[in-house]
């Protein structure tokens, strides 16, 4: 199946008086129709810039991209009729009601008035906004706004849905609700490009993940592929007495057979455990026999946080501002 998104060598440079920020530094992307790509990275990594280029809102300085074969720079109108975009900041009109917003965007998407009304009703139903349909959006909660924003992106039944940090700023319950909604859309066969700074979110929703950092894609694969890059499961032990750290370390080395790391601050020892749960049982027995008191012990799978740390050498939370003091990944245009 041909790729719905095909982008290669995308470069975007933001110039200011003093400095030059390479927001994108050669990004290649291919997303087959019917799949979900998660673009994962910290603030300022270049996720939003990538999305804005693919959504025809921004022109790349180099490279090119096509959506279903239509060039985003040369054929923006064709691209726009294929995509639905839901951004980081809920871009719906605060002073219109939910149903007025959807009708307006439907009409601008070239639906006839009756069609736009019907489609709006359908989406209000689907996104649990029926009760709020005639209220102005100003009175909506954050989660409701996001759902309306997503509904707006879907009004024209796009072949490609682009969601830029769909759950940033939502409370945990709204986030789970949003995930359900997105999973539902994916089940219905929409192709999805999703950006997120939450590793868990990419893990939950995406078929393939591309990790972005400093304008480059530094790794790609399934969540499992990425996790296996940092090794398998690991055992974490928190010892009660600092004095028993050395004994504990020796024990772990013998049972698990790998390099142990020790975090002074949390008194936590970490060791790769290739034997999984069996190793854990052995470790618990040996600690007990040796009389080493422990506060906590766990077998943990690597998270994408570990992946990120391993790949970039820094954690996922990065500086919010670029060199020129502008919100980095944001709406610089």
């Amino acid at each position, binding site marked *: 199946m041909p790729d719905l998104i095909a982008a290669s060598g995308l470069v975007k440079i933001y110039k200011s008086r003093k400095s030059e920020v390479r927001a994108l530094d050669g990004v290649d992307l291919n997303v087959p129709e019917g799949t979900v790509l998660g673009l994962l990275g910290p603030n300022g990594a270049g996720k939003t810039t990538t999305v804005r280029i693919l959504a025809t*809102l*921004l*022109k790349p300085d180099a490279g090119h991209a096509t959506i279903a074969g239509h060039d985003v720079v040369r054929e923006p109108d064709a691209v726009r009729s294929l995509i639905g975009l839901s951004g980081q900041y809920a871009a719906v009109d605060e*002073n219109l009601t939910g149903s*007025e917003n959807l009708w*307006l965007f439907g*009409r601008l*998407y070239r639906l006839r008035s009756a069609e736009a009304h019907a489609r709006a009703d359908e989406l209000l139903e689907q996104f649990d906004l029926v009760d709020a349909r005639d209220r102005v959006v100003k009175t909506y909660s954050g989660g409701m706004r996001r759902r309306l924003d997503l509904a707006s992106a879907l009004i024209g039944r796009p072949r490609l849905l682009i969601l830029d940090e769909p759950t940033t700023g939502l409370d945990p319950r709204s986030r789970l609700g949003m995930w359900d909604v997105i999973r539902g859309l994916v089940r219905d066969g929409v192709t999805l490009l999703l950006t997120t700074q939450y590793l868990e979110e990419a893990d939950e929703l995406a078929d393939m993940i591309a990790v972005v950092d400093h304008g480059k894609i530094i790794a790609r694969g399934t969540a499992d592929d990425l996790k296996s890059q940092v090794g398998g499961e690991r055992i974490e032990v928190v010892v009660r007495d600092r004095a028993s750290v050395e004994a504990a370390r020796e024990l772990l080395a013998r049972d698990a057979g790998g390099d142990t790391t020790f975090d002074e601050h949390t008194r936590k020892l970490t060791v790769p455990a290739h034997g999984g749960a069996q190793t854990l049982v052995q470790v618990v027995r040996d600690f007990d026999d040796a009389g080493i008191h422990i506060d906590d012990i766990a077998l943990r799978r690597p998270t994408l946080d570990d992946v990120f740390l391993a790949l970039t050498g820094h954690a996922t939370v990065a500086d919010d501002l670029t060199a020129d003091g502008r919100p980095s990944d944001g*709406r610089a245009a």
Partner: protein
Amino acid sequence: MTANRTSAAGANRSRAGSAVTDGLLVGWRNLKRIPRIPELAIFAILQSIMFVLLFVFVFGGAIPIPGGGDYKQYLMPGIFAQTIVFAAATTAIGMTDDINKGIIDRFRSLPMSRTAVLTGRTFSDVIYNAGILVVLILTGFILGWRVESLPALIAGFALLLFFAYRMAWLGVWLGLNVPTVEVGQQVIFIVLFPITFISNVFVPLQGLPTWLQPFAEWNPTSTLTASLRQLWGNPSPVISDSLAATQPILVTIGWVVLIIAIFGPLGVRRYRSMSR
């Protein structure tokens, strides 16, 4: 707002047709907001009424009209003109606000006409200003201001709206060029204050220094005000026999056409270059 019966994407709809439809849709959206933020219109009207009261009762007594005449009759056309000039601020701030709230990004990601956001904005702001003018004209009548005839009133009203359209395009361009609403407010008033006050709106030009008189006389705000005074039979003292003084209506129409011819394309170009 008719759409041909075509495919779902309405591909056969002509470009011009969809530009008009989309412009009307954006205009509809802007107008829908007005009753939902009534403060905007209320304060615009109150501000103008405040100027009327201030000048009629406080400053007016100190401003003699060359050739005689009642200051109130002199002032009202100027107040209408001033209101329309200030309206550019509302347009600009509305535009900047839409950009900052991401609505413009939404519009730009839709397969809609690319000028519709601007034509819709200018169209709806003219309608909005028409509403404000009606309230002010009624207020003027209550205060004792009079015009010569109804046709003259209608002609003057039409000229005001034509001028409002020009101010809207200026406002759109300003709004597209400022980064935030706050900066917008500052910049706009720096632009609008000289246009408004170095004019014949509040004071006859005779009192201005000679070097400033030509600017004030040819200032579009002055020519508009002079046009209204002439049309309505309100006192309209002139300082020279220049075209601006003798044919203010013609000059005003010329100004409107010129400014739209400049700022219309500039605004559209700026809007399109947002993707850079």
